[in-house]
C-alpha cells in the first residue's frame, strides 16, 4: 500500500509539470464527459444494468427506509413527501437552505428533515442508512442534468469552492485542477483520470467494495496526494461540492454510478 502511494506520488509530481491556469470554465460545456466514459466496458455495462449494479442494493434499502417510521414524532419521509416528489431534487444540490441560510448538500438536507421535522437523530455521514436514503433520492433524478444555482447567498460558497479547487495542497503541491482540468483522459497508474464530476454519487466503487459519498471520493483524492483530510461535512467540502456541481452543469445524474 505504502509503495503504491509512493509510486503515485512520483506519477502525480510528473503531472504537475503541465499545468494550465485556472479560467472561468476550464472544460467547456461541449466537452463535458461523465466519469463513466473513462471506465472499461465491463464497469460501464454494470452501471447501466439496473439489476446487477450493486449500488441498487442501497437504492432499494433507501426505498424501504423512505416509508419507515422514525423519531419522536413517528413519521416517515413518505408521511410528508409523495413518492414522485423527489424527481429533479438531487440535480439542484448543494443548495442554500432557506431556514438557516446555510449551504447544504443532499445528505445534510435529509438530516435536516430528520432533526427538524421528525425529531429524529441525524444519520452519520457514510452510515448505511444515510447512503441508502441519499442514493434513493438521487436515483429519482436519473438522467436529469445537474442544475445548481450559484447566485445570491450561494455565490460566496461558489467562490470559496473555486479557490479550494485550485488550491495547491499536500506533499505533492497539487490542486484538483492539475489532474481533473489539465490531465483528464491520461493514465495515472492503473486509473484513467476523469474530469472529476460529482454526477454519479453516491457511487459503488470496486476499491471500496461498497457504496460511498462524494465526500468520501474527494477524501480519497486528498489522501492520494497526501493532503490533509477534513472531517466529513466540513464547510470546505460543501463549497467544493458546489463548485464541482457548477463545473458539471448539464451532465446527467447517474446515481448509483459504478467506479473502479
Amino acid at each position, binding site marked *: 500500500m505504502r509503495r503504491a502511494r509512493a509510486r503515485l506520488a512520483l506519477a502525480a509530481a510528473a503531472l504537475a509539470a503541465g499545468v494550465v491556469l485556472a479560467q472561468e470554465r476550464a472544460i467547456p460545456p461541449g466537452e463535458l464527459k461523465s466519469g463513466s466514459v473513462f471506465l472499461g466496458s465491463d464497469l460501464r455495462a454494470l452501471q447501466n444494468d439496473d439489476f*446487477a449494479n450493486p449500488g*441498487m*442494493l442501497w437504492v432499494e434499502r433507501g426505498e424501504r427506509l423512505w416509508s419507515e417510521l422514525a423519531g419522536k414524532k413517528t413519521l416517515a419521509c413518505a408521511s410528508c413527501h409523495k413518492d414522485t416528489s423527489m424527481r429533479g431534487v438531487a440535480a439542484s444540490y448543494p443548495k442554500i437552505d432557506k431556514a438557516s441560510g446555510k449551504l447544504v448538500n443532499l445528505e445534510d438536507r435529509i438530516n435536516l428533515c430528520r432533526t427538524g421535522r421528525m425529531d429524529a437523530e441525524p444519520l452519520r455521514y457514510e452510515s448505511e442508512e444515510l447512503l441508502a436514503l441519499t442514493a434513493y433520492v438521487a436515483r429519482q433524478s436519473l438522467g436529469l442534468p445537474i442544475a445548481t444555482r450559484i447566485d445570491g447567498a450561494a455565490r460566496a460558497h461558489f467562490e470559496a469552492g473555486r479557490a479550494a479547487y485550485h488550491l495547491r495542497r499536500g506533499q505533492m503541491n497539487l490542486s484538483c485542477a492539475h489532474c481533473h482540468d489539465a490531465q483528464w483522459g491520461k493514465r495515472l497508474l492503473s486509473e484513467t483520470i476523469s474530469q472529476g464530476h460529482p454526477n454519479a454519487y453516491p457511487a459503488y466503487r470496486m476499491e471500496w*467494495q*461498497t457504496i460511498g459519498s462524494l465526500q468520501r471520493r474527494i477524501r480519497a483524492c486528498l489522501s492520494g496526494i497526501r493532503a490533509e483530510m477534513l472531517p466529513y461535512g466540513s464547510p470546505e467540502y460543501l463549497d467544493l461540492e458546489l463548485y464541482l456541481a457548477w463545473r458539471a452543469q448539464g451532465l446527467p445524474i447517474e446515481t448509483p454510478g459504478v467506479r473502479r
Partner: protein
Amino acid sequence: MAARIQIPRQAKRGEVIEVRILIQHPMETGYRHDDVGHLIKRNVITVLSCRYNGVEVFRADLSSGISANPYVQFYTVAQASGDLEFTWIDDEGERGSERQSIVVKG
C-alpha cells in the same frame, strides 16, 4: 441481508429462464484491516441454494474468491407456476432468504 432476484414474471412451460440474484454481503476475506488496524474476521456466504417449488434446482459453495455483494446468474426450466426461493448462510451462521414467484403457462 437484503437481496434482489430477477426472473421473468411469466414463462411458457419448458422454457429455459434466466435467474439472477444479487445479495448485499461484504464477503469479508479475513485479510482486511479496520480503521484501527485490527484484522476483520472472515465472513463470507458459504452456501447459496435455490429451490423451485421446494425442489433444489441450483446450489453453490462460495468463498472469499467471490466479490463483495455477490452476483450469480444461472438458468432453470420453467416447469410450473410457483416460487423460486433462495436461501444462504454465512460464516457467522446468519441466514438469508428471498423468494420470487413465476406464472407458467401451457
